[in-house]
């Protein structure tokens, strides 16, 4: 590493990225759930 990231920036990043990472993971998980429910509906009732 040749640039100085600054300690305070690293510490802050841990907190902010932690929160944003949780949101990111939840969104992906929710995407899977919605996708799975859609597939299940198609399988049960067919298209249209």
């Amino acid at each position: 590493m040749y640039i100085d990231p600054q300690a305070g920036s690293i510490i802050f990043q841990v907190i902010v990225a932690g929160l944003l990472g949780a949101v990111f993971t939840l969104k992906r998980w929710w995407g899977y759930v919605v996708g799975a429910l859609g597939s299940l509906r198609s399988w049960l009732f067919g298209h249209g």
Partner: protein
Amino acid sequence: MTEPLRGSYRDPSGYVFERSGTLYRCVRYSYAEDYDALLSTGLYRELADAGLLVAHEEAASVNAGVADAYRVLRPERVPFISYPYEWCFGQLRAAALCTLAIQRRALAHGMVLKDSSAYNVQFRGALPVFIDSLSFQRYRPGVPWVAYRQFCEHFLAPLVLIARVDPTLGRILRIHLDGIPLDVTARVLGGRAFRSWGSLVHILLHGRSVRRHAGATAARVRKAAVSAASLRGLIDDLERCVRACDWTPGRTEWAEYDRTHGYSTDAQTAKRQLVTDYLRRSGAQVVWDLGANTGEYSRLALDTAARAVAFDADVAAVERNYRRQAEVGDTRLLPLVMDLTDPSPALGFNLRERLSLAERGPADVVLALALIHHLGLGKNVPFALMAESLAQLGRFLIIEFVPKHDPQAQRLLAAREDVFTDYTLEVFERSFGVWYRRLDRQPVPGTDRILFLLERTP
């Protein structure tokens, strides 16, 4: 050893040098594993094919002249080097999004950007391209992104200042070459920092954390860990914040000039024809259009020239010009913010890191259309100084003499005393005659203006 370019000294992974007019990048052994990973992961090919990173070829036969040279690369050359303090809002935003797009693709290939300097981005016309192929390193799980603060100071801070405070604040980058410090940005924003998530979190709170933990121990920093999912979340959020920054160029006196210049349609057609004839006669490939406004004549120049740079001091006019070019994905016309009474000087360490405007020339042809009254009557620049300055920038000069009684010149004199006794055609010709020989001179039909084609004397 071949001397590195003076601005290429920060990163120990390698350096850029020039030999016989060709640009090379030396990769040192210390960077060998990361360089190999850039190629073997397919990241380099993907980014180069997408036009996000300049392509290079390995120049095996070129000796960099240092013992620890692992590879020598011959990168594709960007036609004109511009700097973030010369970009309009849209360019800064496009450069920020380009950097984040690269970071996202790098993560998908198990790599990460180790820096996010705005100086790593250049423009080919309206399209941003990353120029530093040594900015990548292999991703180590859990390690925070070391370039997070740099990204915020180089990109987010000026974008937020332009969008929320004043469109001319991008020029602050000229005095903060390493990015606008977060605490400075927060102070300028004041209460406006609370108006958006991006300025509240990535500027204000981020800056406070930097100040508060300035004395943190190395052990505490080493313990800090960020998961890959968190890093992706951070990149997504930064992109959202950059996209949320918006600025619409309002009506300024000069951004509206192409509709308010007062030319009749016939006069305008005649002037365009004259300029085209002069451009053909000069055989120009590279045109610098000074006082280009929204770029009408820069685009005209592209009918005969290979590329053009359109300079104007009015940020709204440059923004409009850029947006027009970006819409069509143009790669030949580069609009830049430049005040000709205060053009970009040489800057940085030893005044050699960032080149002055003149050092980035010369152009084949300089266009100075409807410009001299702004410099002469608006900024008090005498013709002698104007001629000396323009002569540094290019071989041919297409310049329009605007007499004092012209309506546009009279607008500039409306509220001030006319102290410009030397603003005459005779003094104009004498002053420019010191530096140039006259190849042609034609009146612009329907006006009292005169168009000159001049060639610089050796």
